[in-house]
């Protein structure tokens, strides 16, 4: 068992788990408080179209999926700001079209069906040294951006108009947030899988919200819950040889239920 944990794939998985949980938990607080969970799920499925296109073109799926998902994230934000079309309707349409395209691309070249499945469900075996490097760079970028934007995003999350009256460029900030969430999702799908990445964004932040009195507390608790559940989930999934993404999300959900029950009992 110890040998298994010392294996390089396991170490990669632990590092990836740490980075991905920090990313998802930090953006997750905005996803939860702005009620954008459906956006996370929609963008994850959009990423599937990009992954499938990458597999078809025999190009690293990550690099195809990133622009694909970013463009859709920008389009959705544009529709939200400028159109009377409901955002969940727009997400539903993009979601379906991307998955349909993904299925089409995979069926053209059936050699990559198993790879596509790995992306759907996530696999620690998929995580390479390069992936770790990209994720780490993006985590550092996120850290710098948060130093400047956390207070702006939080203000406009509380009240869009008050932030706008105080001369915050909320439209630009919304585009920036959507693009960063899109990149976070694409980075996370190798480990967690397309089907589960939205929960990864939502559950730690939602758990944090249960016990937080301020938004700063919610951000910190979200990071703590995200990291603990991810590392413990990876550890257990390696020990029991079970799918990592599923294990992490189930662990996160148990955490959520436990805190919900404790909160109810000690009310």
């Amino acid at each position, binding site marked *: 068992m110890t040998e298994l944990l010392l294996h390089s794939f396991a170490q990669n998985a632990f590092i990836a788990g740490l980075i991905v949980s920090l990313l998802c938990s930090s953006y997750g607080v905005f996803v939860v408080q702005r009620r954008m969970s459906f956006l996370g799920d929609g963008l994850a499925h959009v990423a599937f179209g990009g992954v499938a296109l990458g597999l078809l073109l025999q190009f690293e799926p990550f690099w195809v999926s990133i622009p694909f998902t970013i463009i859709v994230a920008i389009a959705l934000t544009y529709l939200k700001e400028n159109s009377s079309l409901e955002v969940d309707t727009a997400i539903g349409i993009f979601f379906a079209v991307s998955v349909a395209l993904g299925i089409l691309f995979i069926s053209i070249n059936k050699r990559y069906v198993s790879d596509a499945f790995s992306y759907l469900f996530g696999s620690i075996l998929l995580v390479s040294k390069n992936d770790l490097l990209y994720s780490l760079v993006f985590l550092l970028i996120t850290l710098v951006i948060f130093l400047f934007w956390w*207070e702006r995003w939080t203000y406009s999350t*509380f009240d869009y*108009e*008050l932030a706008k009256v105080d001369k*915050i460029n909320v439209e630009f900030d919304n585009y920036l947030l959507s693009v960063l969430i899109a990149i976070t999702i694409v980075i996370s799908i190798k480990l967690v899988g397309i089907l589960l990445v939205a929960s990864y964004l939502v559950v730690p932040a939602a758990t944090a919200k249960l016990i937080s009195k301020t938004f700063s507390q919610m951000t910190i608790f979200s990071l703590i819950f995200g990291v603990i559940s991810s590392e413990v989930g990876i550890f257990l999934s390696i020990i029991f040889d079970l799918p990592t993404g599923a294990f992490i999300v189930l662990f996160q959900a148990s955490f959520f239920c436990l805190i919900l029950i404790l909160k109810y009992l000690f009310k």
Partner: protein
Amino acid sequence: MKDPIVEISELSVFFGKYCVLNKVDLFVRSLDFLTIVGPNGGGKTTLIKTILGLVEPESGSVRVFGKKPCSVAYKNIGYVPQIKTIDRSFPGKVYELVATGWSGRWKFALNDVLRQRVKEVLSTCGLEHLEDRQINKLSGGELQRVFLARSFIRKPKLLLLDEPATGIDTIAETDFSFLLEKLQKENQTTIIMVTHDWEYAYYHSTSVLLLNKSVVALGKPQDVFTEENLQKTFGHLGHEHNMDFILRKDD
């Protein structure tokens, strides 16, 4: 002559094809206390939001301190929104909300100087007991006064209030008027307030705007609140409007 604070001419605003404001002219001078009275859907909130730069006009011009609304420094303008639009599920405390009035950001943590400033303004407003309270644990009236404290902290030159008295009981409303007068006196603040309370408008404001998409009347309260003007603003309701408060004042 006092400086002009807000100058609006020929302002028209449309939402799609629907005309919300039609050729509105308005001139507000320094230290005025203008109340805007009108029916629901009469464009009161839209007018406030146009002055704040939240709504783009279809035609006409809006100048605040001689500039376009988007170019005015945020600290010069205080805004008390309708509290029914505020997200009460947001995890935040009163002192954090009041601090946004000073910093124009939702601070991750407050430094000692800002915390002290928040304490002082809450004490001025008689709200020190609410400092550490969560926003979602406040009553409507308490939240309204917290928003007033939030606008006080920046000592604005212009204060815009959108139906601040809605949901406040009479005692709280007296405090509210007292606080507004104090702010105006100490900081030379010009006030524009949307209200449904005619009596409040009559006794407290220096001028009243009756608005129903376009300007029905604008002037001193005693000149504006006539039966004819009110009928023009609110439509022919088939009964006499209750003008007791005017008679009381005359008595």
